[in-house]
C-alpha cells in the first residue's frame, strides 16, 4: 500500500525539472568546494610537513558545507511547492492518509539525495586523492592516499551521504511545519549555518564546546573525522546521532502538523 504512495511521490519528484538540476548541484558543489578546499591547504603552513596532523579525508569532504544548501532546497520544495501551488489538496484527496504521504515523500527524497550525495562524495575523494600529494600530503610525510579501503575513510564518506540525507529529512519536516517555501528554507539554512558560525565566534570554551556538541551541523559533520578523534567535541557516531535527533523531531512535528491542520 505504502509502496504505491512511494511510487506516486517518486513520479512527482522525477517529473519536475528542478529535481534534476538540484541533484546535479548537490553532486557538483560537493566536488567543487571539496577540491577548492583541498587545494588551498598544503603542508607548508604547518610547523613541518610531518606535523600537520591534517584530517585529509575531512578536508576533501568539505564540499557538503555548500551542497547541503542545495539539499535543503530540494527537500523543502517537495513539500512546500505543493502548498504553494495548492496541489496539496489534490494530494490529500488522492492519498488521505497524510502521515503515509509524508513518509513516502521522505523515502523518495532520501533516495535522490543519497544518490547525488554518493556521486559527490566519490568525486570529492577522487579529487582529494589527486590534489593532496601535490600539496605535500605524501606517503613520506605520513599521509596515505585517500582510499575507500581505509575503514575510517569509508565511514567518513558513507557518513557524509547519511549526513546529507538527514539534512534532507530535516528540511522536509520543517517544510511540512512552516508550509511556506521562503520561510522554511530560511529557517533550515539558519539552523544549520548559524549555530556553526556561533561555535567559532563564541570564544568561551564551555559554550563553544556545547555549541559544537549540540548544534546540528557541527555535530553531524563529526562523522567525517578520521583522525585526531580525541580532540573532537563529540565523537562521530554520537554526533550524527545528534543531527538524527533534530531530524526526527522535525519530521515528527511536521507529520503532526500536516495531520491536524486543515489543508
Amino acid at each position, binding site marked *: *500500500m505504502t509502496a*504505491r*504512495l512511494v*511510487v*506516486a*511521490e517518486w*513520479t*512527482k519528484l522525477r*517529473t*519536475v*525539472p*528542478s529535481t534534476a538540476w538540484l541533484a546535479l548541484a548537490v553532486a557538483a558543489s560537493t566536488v567543487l568546494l571539496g577540491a577548492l578546499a583541498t587545494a588551498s591547504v598544503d603542508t607548508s603552513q604547518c610547523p613541518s610537513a610531518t606535523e600537520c596532523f591534517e584530517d585529509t579525508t575531512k578536508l576533501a569532504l568539505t564540499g557538503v558545507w555548500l551542497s547541503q544548501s542545495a539539499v535543503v532546497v530540494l527537500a523543502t520544495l517537495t513539500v512546500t*511547492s*505543493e502548498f504553494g*501551488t*495548492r*496541489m*496539496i*489538496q*489534490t494530494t*490529500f*484527496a*488522492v*492519498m*488521505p*492518509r497524510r502521515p503515509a504521504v509524508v513518509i513516502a515523500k521522505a523515502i523518495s527524497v532520501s533516495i535522490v539525495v543519497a544518490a547525488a550525495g554518493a556521486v559527490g562524495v566519490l568525486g570529492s575523494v577522487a579529487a582529494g586523492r589527486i590534489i593532496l600529494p601535490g600539496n605535500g600530503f605524501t606517503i613520506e610525510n605520513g599521509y596515505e592516499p585517500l582510499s575507500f579501503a581505509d575503514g575510517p575513510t569509508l565511514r567518513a564518506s558513507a557518513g557524509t551521504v547519511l549526513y546529507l540525507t538527514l539534512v534532507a529529512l530535516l528540511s522536509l519536516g520543517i517544510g511540512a511545519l512552516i508550509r511556506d517555501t521562503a520561510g522554511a528554507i530560511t529557517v533550515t539554512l539558519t539552523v544549520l549555518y548559524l549555530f556553526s558560525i556561533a561555535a567559532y565566534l563564541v570564544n568561551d570554551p564551555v559554550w563553544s564546546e556545547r555549541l559544537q556538541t549540540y548544534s546540528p551541523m557541527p555535530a553531524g559533520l563529526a562523522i567525517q573525522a578520521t583522525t585526531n578523534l580525541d580532540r573532537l567535541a563529540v565523537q562521530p557516531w554520537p554526533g550524527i546521532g545528534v543531527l538524527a535527533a533534530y531530524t526526527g523531531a522535525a519530521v515528527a512535528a511536521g507529520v503532526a502538523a500536516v495531520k491536524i491542520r*486543515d*489543508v
Partner: protein
Amino acid sequence: MPPGPQWLPTVTTRVGAAPTVLDMTTDIEVRDIRKRYGPTVAVDGLSFTIRSGQVTGLVGPNGAGKSTTMRVILGLDSADEGTALIGGRPYASLRNPIRHVGALLDAGAVHPGRRARDHLLWMAHASGIPKRRVDEVIELVGLSSAARRRVGGFSLGMRQRLGIAGALLGDPPALIFDEPVNGLDPEGIRWIRGLLRRLATEGRAVLVSSHLMSELEGSADHLVVIGRGKRIADTSVQDLLTAASRGRVAVRTTAVSEAITVLTQEGASVGVVDHGVLIVTGLSAQRAIALLAASELPFSEVSGYRATLEEAYLNLTRDAGEFSAASPVEAS
C-alpha cells in the same frame, strides 16, 4: 483549442477492483456539518444528500460555504461538527478514494513545471490505476495534443479540462466539481454540460457547485441552495421553477402603462420584464385577458410565466447574499 469530444461510447476500462458504475448506488451524504474559520462560521448545520443518477447543483452566493462543504466531504478540512459520508463511509476510510469520488476543486492547483500527463500519472500510481487509463481520460477531455506539454503554459480552460480528467481518472461513481465552468468559453461550457449529463445518465452521483445559475440551467436536476452557511432550499429544479412561476402570468402588450393601470386596479402587482412584457401576479390568465379586452387594450400573448432559474435563485437568496453590490431600484 482542441474541441470537446463528440459523444464517445461509455468507458469500458475496468479499473482494478472498483465496482462498475451500475452495480452500486453511491450517494454523498452530508449531515449537520458545522465549520468555522476563526470568528467566521462558514458552514452552519448543513445537511443534504447527493443522489446517484442525477446532477445536483450546490448553489449559493460567493462566501456561502460551497467550497468549504466540498472540502469537508473530501476530508481536506475537518468539520467542527457533523459527518460527511460517501456511499455510507467517511472519506478517510476509503481505500484508493479517487476510485470512489473524483473531484475537481481548483484547476490552478498544479505544478507549472510538470507535464500534464505526469500530473495524472502520479495520481494513477497512488491509486493502483493502470497507465492506459491516464491516456484514456486525457483523450476524453480533449487534451491529447497537449498531454506532453508543461502545465505552466496551459490556458485556464485547459487546466479545467486537466482537472476534470483527474476527477474521472478513477472512474468513480461519485463526482464533485467546484465551479467547473470558470474560465471556459461557450464551447467549453457546452461540453461540460454534456459531460455532466452523461455522467448522471451513467448512474453516477454528480455534485456541481456554482454561483451562477445560468451555468446550471439545462444540466442540473436537483438543487441545494445555501446562503451564509445554511441550507435555503433542497429541491428539484422542476419544483423550484414551478414555485417561482406559480401564479404569474406573462402578458405581451404594446400599451404598457395603460395595461399596468388596469391590472393594478384589480389588485394585481405588475412587473416589467422586457419591452412590452408584463409579469402579473395575483390574477389568473383568464381574468387578465378579460380585463384587457374590456379596456380594449391590445395584447398578443398571455401565458403562464416560466421563471428562469436565475430569477428563482435570486428570489431565494436575496436576503442571504453576503457580498452584493447595491441593487438598483426595481420597477413595481
